């Protein structure tokens, strides 16, 4: 009986450093999709996502020995590189960041045009509403956006996201909570301010 085993990321990386081209290709094909989508969801730009993905693996090829398995998974390491490149790209190109600048810490929004004019939360199966949610995520400030992308869109645990963002798990948790509140407020803002305000002021009732 033949037992087929799938090599781990760390094993593939070790082979890759030794010059194994197949290991590199396998590792790339295994991880490129997530990295690409993360960069796409963070930047909203396919061009940036493509560049970031390329840079991530270029860095991996050149600095693979900097990866320490004791500090976290290779996936987290790659996402961390991608995140740094995305933020660098966003800081260079303010055209992507300008959308997010409409959000303030107190939850005020300045880009109402990004939200669909009907009730977006009423039927999220429609394509245009999905697009509204996507735009609302893209419009979040970067430090909120990245936790939403990692935890909600990439279904990472708080610990994994904390490794990527190099911060405490509690920070991830609180940021995600706040980011989701901002998203809900954004998506409900049109025509129903009462409901929105009730969402962002949850401590009125102590039943």
């Amino acid at each position, binding site marked *: 009986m033949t037992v087929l085993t799938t090599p781990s990321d760390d094993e593939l990386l070790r082979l890759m*450093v030794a*010059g194994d*081209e197949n290991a*590199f*290709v396998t590792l*790339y*094909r295994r991880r*490129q*999709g997530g*990295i*690409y*989508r993360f960069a*796409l*969801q963070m930047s909203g730009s396919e*061009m940036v*996502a*493509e*560049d970031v*993905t*390329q*840079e991530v*693996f*270029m860095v991996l*090829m*050149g600095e693979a020995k900097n990866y320490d398995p004791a500090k976290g998974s290779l996936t987290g390491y790659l996402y961390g590189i991608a995140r740094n*490149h995305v933020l*660098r*790209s966003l800081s*260079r190109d303010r055209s992507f960041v300008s959308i997010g600048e409409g959000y303030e810490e107190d939850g005020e929004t300045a880009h109402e045009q990004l939200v669909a004019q009907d009730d*977006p*939360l009423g039927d*999220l*199966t429609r394509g245009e*509403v*999905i697009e509204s*949610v*996507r735009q609302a*995520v893209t419009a979040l400030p970067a430090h909120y956006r990245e936790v*939403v992308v990692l*935890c*909600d*869109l*990439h*279904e990472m645990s708080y610990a994994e996201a904390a490794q990527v963002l190099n911060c405490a798990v509690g920070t991830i*948790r609180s940021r*995600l*909570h706040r980011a*989701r509140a901002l*998203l*809900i407020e954004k*998506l*409900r803002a049109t025509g129903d301010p009462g409901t929105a305000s*009730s*969402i962002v002021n*949850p*401590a*009125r*009732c*102590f*039943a």
Partner: protein
Amino acid sequence: MNCRNLETIITELARNQMLEARVKEDAHAHMKTCKRCAVRFADEQTLTAGLRAVAASVATMETPTRVEAALLKAFRQGTSSPFVLTNTPARPIRTPWLPWSIAAAAAILIFSVFALPRLLSDDSGGRAVQKASNAQPAPGLSPTITIPESEQDEAEIQPLNATVNPEDDVIPSVPRPVDRRRAVMQIAGLRNRPAQRANNLTPTTSANEEITTDFLPLSYSSSLSQMDGGQVVRVELPRSALQSFGLPVNAENASERVKADVLLGHDGVARAIRFVR
């Protein structure tokens, strides 16, 4: 459980994260009695569904195949030289370090145009021609020479390349910065052509029937045989400079000019000289 307590777990609750069964029961029990929290929870659940729909909408999106091809090419280049990548641009147009590369290239170009000619005129043209030993020293020649300052200022740099025209005897006596600039650019081009450079270092009669002496060392500091490359530049000197190398000079035509090739190391220091007729 009250609303405040529910708020602390509502994200995890809506995202179906791991929670104690008792906490979940308390939360749902609270929402049955608090309409506002029920609406809040419904919003969170709807948002979760929306985010999952967004995630599903891009689940099949992947990097274009050209990126893999470019990376694979870079990988092969990296493995051919003990896995130290030189940050080769797989797609040079949009790589973030491209502006820095352009800036560096511009700096090198500016240096080549403005600073290098001055260095060449100072070093090889002859201001401080300090200078070198040779693997093939010419018998009877003093290996250390100093070109008189009055003669050094008259030195005219010309590039030596494959298109040197021996019939072009008209060389301006006054140094022209434009010519030097052009010369430097051509010299820079020679740096990437080792075969041609090797030919230039051969102290024999050129294909254009120029007669040259052997390269005469200008200092003991290094051996020509140990040089890993360099540039040869054509200069013009007063014939009296031949005396400094122990070569015979007719006093009647001592004021005439004679062509010479100066061999420069990578550091820009003149290593050797040969005379051309």
